[in-house]
Every structure is written in C-alpha cells, then in structure tokens.
C-alpha cells in the first residue's frame, strides 16, 4: 500500500510517501490511521488528532470508514486551503 502525506502532515511524518504493509485487520482508513500512528514518533505526532486530518483513497476524498486494501494509494493531509 502506498501512503502519501501532504502539508504539515508530511512535515511531521518526515517523508512525503512510503510503501507500507499493514496487518490484515487494518481494513479501513480509521484503522490505518491507528496503525500508522505507531510507526515512529513523527507519525504519532501527525496522527495525534485524527479530526484535523482528511484522507483520500485512490485520489478521491474518503471518510474514516472507507475500506483500504493492499494495492490502494492512500493520502493524508489537512483540510484543503486552495483558491
């Protein structure tokens, strides 16, 4: 699974993207957040308050209950501020 980070989420995690292999019980975005948070202190800081985060699965906005699978591209970022 490819995971991408943007804006301050990327800065806290310390990398822009990584390939991860979460355990089989990680089936949705919320569970992935919980698992990623245990990887490094940077991940823990980035995922400390999931309410501040937004997610996309395969480049579409996704809610915490959205399923994730091994070949997905999952991105985490703050609420968008373009325009």
């Amino acid at each position, binding site marked *: 699974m490819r995971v991408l980070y*943007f*804006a301050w989420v990327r800065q806290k995690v310390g990398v822009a993207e990584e390939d991860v292999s979460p355990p089989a019980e990680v089936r949705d975005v919320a569970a992935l957040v919980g698992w990623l948070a245990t990887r490094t202190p940077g991940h823990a800081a980035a995922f400390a308050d999931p309410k501040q985060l937004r997610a*996309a699965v395969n*480049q579409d906005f996704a809610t915490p209950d959205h399923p994730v699978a091994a070949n997905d591209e999952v991105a985490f970022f703050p*609420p*968008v*501020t*373009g*325009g």
Partner: protein
Amino acid sequence: MARVLVQDAPFDIAAETAALTAGRTDVGGVGSFLGVCRADDGLAALVLEHYPGMTERAIGRIVDQAQARWPLTGCTVIHRVGRILPGEGIVLVLTASAHRAAALEACAFLIDWLKTSAPFWKREEFAAGTHRWVAARAEDDAATARWTQDAAAAGRAKA
C-alpha cells in the same frame, strides 16, 4: 471544452479571456474570478502545495458539475502552485456563456468548490523567516454548502 491547468508560471488573463471568445459568436458574457496573493501580517510569499493527479481529477469533476448545471460555451480554471509573491495571481476562473447569469453563477460556484474540494495547501512565509500553514475557514465550507442548498431548493421548486 474546459481548460484546466495546474502550473508554477503566472497566467495571462487577457490571453485566456480572448481564447474563450476566439472564433465564436455565441458568447454573450465571460465571468471571471482572479484570486490574488495578499500581504497580510508582513507576508513575504505564499507557497502552494498540491496532490498531483488528484488535483486535476478534483478540478475536472467540479468543472463537469458546473457544465451540467449552467449552459457554458467554455470554461478555464488555472491554479498556480509553488512560490507566489504578494500582488501576483493565484487562481483564475473564467466562464463563458450566452448570458451573464449563467457565466457569473458558474464562476462563483467554481471558485467556492475549488476552495473546499481541490487538494491544495497554502503555507505563508514571513519576512522574519517564519512560516505557517493556512488553516481552513468555516466560511469557505458555508459558501460551498450554499450551492447544495440552492440545488435542493431548486429541486423542491420543480417538484
């Protein structure tokens, strides 16, 4: 029919506007929105980051919705990324139609949705060397929600 660009370079409003009317006689008006970088609180520059791939997809989807909702003859959305200085353009939305109401409403719809539904993030750089990420604004969500309420009201009116 729609021209969607995400680019580092500045854009040329006059050239983009001319392109929407070139060679056609059915355009009665062009609506436009130009977002400009303001220098609040001693801001030296804005640095815009985006999610390549998803950005173009998200903007394309918003443009499709605008074209389904209003009779546009053409539409241009250009969003800059990278470092932008105060006074420079950040985003350009142009909408062409036979009549002004469609052009102006579609233009407002597009910029409201772009602000809340396209994956861009702004970081402010200050003269002192500090920087901060811009926080999302509740007013922007409210401006976008207005369009779904309008659609719901229009649906009820037709029923």
